[in-house]
């Protein structure tokens, strides 16, 4: 059953089509991946689903559990259980890790902070009183953001490039956290151009120039993506007019 449906979604930015009539279904409890080259529209799709302010002027519709969420703000979508982990998580000067996690936690107690920090492989005693600021490495902030998502217990989580800027140990912990989310019944949407992240998905979509090129089992998309899409002639040049040709070329 689809928990999220993207229906004919198009988004123009400065007269350029970033998303061009995307239609996709994300099944509940699955780990989905959206892959494609740089500039394909992957992060834009996540931002549109999250309802970020600069991404609300799209056409088409987005349904969550069968109901349109197009009119809802970011926080309203989040309260339905939709959330997003950024490729480059924000820094919060002065805000403690425990405050940051508790802000999103369903269970607002110290034990919950410790639980989710342990799930992402960070020692609570070392991290709970640190600030979510520049004193943390990119990998640490990424894991703390994931901890806050785990505390939120979302229905659908989108993780934008979950392996970017993190070391080998950290990425393993992030993969474990993704597995934990799946085990808890959360639908996961991985935004990536990394084959090793794609391998963690049950199902994948390949997009290019804001258009759906293919979808299916992860192995099929992985083979297609690594064999035919790289190098992609449309990298960083999403263009509405060349969209059809892009699909044709890659196919």
């Amino acid at each position, binding site marked *: 059953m689809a928990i999220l449906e993207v229906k004919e979604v198009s988004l123009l930015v400065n007269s350029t089509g970033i998303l061009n009539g995307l239609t996709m279904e994300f099944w509940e409890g699955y780990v989905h991946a959206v892959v494609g080259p740089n500039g394909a529209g992957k992060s834009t799709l996540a931002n549109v689903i*999250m309802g*970020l*302010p600069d991404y609300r002027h799209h056409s088409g519709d987005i349904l969550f559990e069968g109901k349109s969420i197009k009119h809802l*703000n*970011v*926080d309203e*979508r*989040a*309260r339905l259980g939709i*959330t*997003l982990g*950024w490729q480059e*998580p*924000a*820094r*919060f*000067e*002065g*805000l*403690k890790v425990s*405050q940051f996690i508790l*802000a*999103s936690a369903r269970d607002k107690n110290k034990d919950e902070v410790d639980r989710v920090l342990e799930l992402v492989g960070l020692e609570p005693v070392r991290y709970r009183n640190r*600030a*979510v600021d520049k004193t943390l490495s990119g990998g640490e902030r990424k894991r703390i*953001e994931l901890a*806050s*998502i785990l505390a*939120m217990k979302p229905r659908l989580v989108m993780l934008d490039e979950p392996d970017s800027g993190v070391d080998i140990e950290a990425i393993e912990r992030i993969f474990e956290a993704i597995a934990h989310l799946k085990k808890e019944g959360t639908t996961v949407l991985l935004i990536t151009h990394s084959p090793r992240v794609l391998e963690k998905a049950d199902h994948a979509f390949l997009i290019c120039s804001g258009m759906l090129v293919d979808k299916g089992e992860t192995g099929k998309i992985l083979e297609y993506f690594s064999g035919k899409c790289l190098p992609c002639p449309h990298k960083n040049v999403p263009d509405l007019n060349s969209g059809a040709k892009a699909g044709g070329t890659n196919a």
Partner: protein
Amino acid sequence: MPDQAVEEILESINLHRSFDRGAPHVVINANKVLSSQVVPGLVIEPEELPDGVRARLLVRQGTKIKQPVHLCFGMLPETGIQKILLEVEIEDEAEVSFMAHCTFPNAVDIQHLMEAEIRVGRNARYSYFERHWHSDQGVVRVVPVARVKLAEGARFSTEFELLKGRVGIIDIDYHTDCQAGSSAEMKARIFGRQDDRIKIKESASLDGQGSRAVLITHIAVRDEATAEINNEIIARAPYSRGHVDCKEIIQGNGVARAVPIVEVRHPKAHVTHEAAIGSVDSKQLQTLMARGLSEEQAVDLIIEGLLS
């Protein structure tokens, strides 16, 4: 009456249950010294004036006072002027930390004026944390002025906090002269609301080799409040280092102005500054809203972090 006044002052700063009267302290209401306690090596000599108190605070050479010394400056009447004239001397190798609590629980029209002369001796350490407790009426005018001299290797830190209640008008003017190997850190955290007026001028002169200074100002203003920050570091000596950091969040019709001045007069000195003024960072806001916080809750949390 003094005991009742002490209780009222302590209650207004939430210390009435936990305050240890055996710990080193001074409690002042308007121009009356209500209570004081010293420990070996600490000298407190207060003198009542018609409109305030003059006090000499001395920490003798080599004395290391482990407990913080509480200074409670209260003004229980509704109106009036309270002048606090402080002469502070921390002798060589001594260490002390002061926790100052300034409270005006019944204020209708109050002026709290402080002038401090502070000398910190060779390799001595002095820290001063000042927390203000104001009402929600915005009827207090606070004007603290401090002149600080640091001897070789001295360490000085001061922090001013005014987060609860209305600021009213505040006009801070602190200056520190730093000799070789000494360090100064001055920090202010203030939340202005309605028509509060905040003015801060902190400066440091790095006169000795290897001296250091950091000036940090974190301000939030909302409604019609204004803030003007003029922080300055002048580096005159080799290997002196300085940094000016000013962050201000504005909301509503709040206005913030920051003028960081850095002046370097020696080729082996180095001073940096950063200033960020504006609305709440959109990525921070979106992150918290994507976890289910409303915009108002997210803004409050971001400001709480900045001012912590």
